[in-house]
């Protein structure tokens, strides 16, 4: 499934590296990546491709743990939800 991964939190060294390393371990391909500072917070958005037979629940749990370790909020959702809500 094509998904959007967002990372929001205090900027610090190594966030992109850690998240990318995790994605590589899970065989999740990064299709697009962009980042900005919004309201003083580091905000990164990645379009990724999660392999079809992955255990999404397990990936979400591991991402939450990674987020805790990096002190950022990491969120992974199927991109269709954003299209449905914000595009006609």
């Amino acid at each position, binding site marked *: 499934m094509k998904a959007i991964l967002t990372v929001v939190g205090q900027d610090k060294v190594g966030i992109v590296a850690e998240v990318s390393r995790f994605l590589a371990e899970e065989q999740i391909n990064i299709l697009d990546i962009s980042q900005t500072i919004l309201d003083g917070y580091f905000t990164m*958005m990645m379009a990724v491709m999660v392999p079809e037979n992955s255990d999404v629940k397990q990936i979400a749990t591991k991402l939450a743990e990674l987020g805790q370790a990096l002190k950022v909020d990491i969120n992974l959702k199927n991109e269709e939800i*954003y299209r449905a809500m914000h595009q006609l």
Partner: protein
Amino acid sequence: MEFDKILETIHMISDQNLDVRTVTMGISLLDCIDSDSDVACQKIYDKITTKAKNLVKVAEQIEMEYGIPIVNKRVSVTPISLVAGASNDRDYVKYAKTLDKAAQTLGIDFIGGFSALVQKGMTKGDEILIASLPQALTQTNLVCASVNVGSSKSGINMDAVKQMGQVIKDAAELDYMNNAKLVVFCNAVEDNPFMAGGFHGVSEPDIVINVGVSGPGVVKTALEKVKGKPLDEVAETIKQTAFKVTRMGQLVGSIAAKRLGVPFGIVDLSLAPTPAVGDSVAQILEEIGLDQVGTHGTTAALAMLNDAVKKGGIMACSHVGGLSGAFIPVSEDAGMIDAVNAGTLNLAKLEAMTAVCSVGLDMIALPGDVPAETLGAMIADEAAIGMINNKTTAVRVIPVPGKKVGDTVEFGGLLGHAPIMDYTHVSSAAMIQRGGTIPAPIHSFKN
């Protein structure tokens, strides 16, 4: 896609309690009718547990992949009075127990449809079902019941109204929680995914998926950005928010229907509060500019909210249905409870509010000594509002034996807690004891 839109969605879900309140599978039981009730109950159990076998699994998969909480998974069935009427049984508790067992096997949260539609008169099956209600509700956990006593087309069946007042009293004596699972309707809809009033109407397909979405917190947060602006801007903001929320419901419903291999019915966009902080319809009305819900202006604010929610939702999905609007259950809404405790909100004002919102007197706790005729009269008033205004109204009131005005009763979970509310102690008994019918209003003759 822009950052701000993606973050808006994430905040709606994580901080503002946006959720899919329920994915409800409607299942017709018309092909389970049998004159032998044991055979009928076996067919009912088999059909429900076969057709809805994957309901919970699919809902959980969607929840995980899309990151949207799906709070409840439910099943609604054909009104049991229609199914059980073919048997010679003297009570239908066995049917209720069958539904309960099927619900437990599936791992769903509720099953609705222990129901009868008696707006114009009662069949033998209707009579037995209504008489079975107190025991059926006491002996089951997940079964929800409803009785439709009136409609704009056929008037109000006052014999049924009288009887339902007594049924509520009797059910309360057995266990006051029984009445949290019982709704008395006027103009009940056939595709309602919400409980306790959901059932699967006879004009529906064999199996269907209906979805209910909610998110009072999302609307309140959106309104914080238009403080002090004219009310048209408030209405516009509600519409746009309702649109986004309904689109999410449409997406979830269509995916669920596809994965379960059944047709997708409707999205019911209802602002259904929960006791959680920030998940309150009362707080939306207060954000519009009322110091506390229940004061003058509440009915106008609620009318605008309810209408704007419908307008926003209608373009967002292929079929809108159910009740779609704002719910005002007292015990499930922290803002409503505060207003009752402060003396700002009373039964009279709640009744006025039900004339412009999508349901009726909902989750209102009353002293245990409230007379059955007074309960009947409350039902009659609500049914009259629904009948004249061509809208659904309902009564779900909960007399609590041993409790008096000022006490609090705990329901637990999504049902919350409620202060015991006062009612008018002047008797309506002579009117209710007349029975008969309130004829259909003049505007019902449209042929």
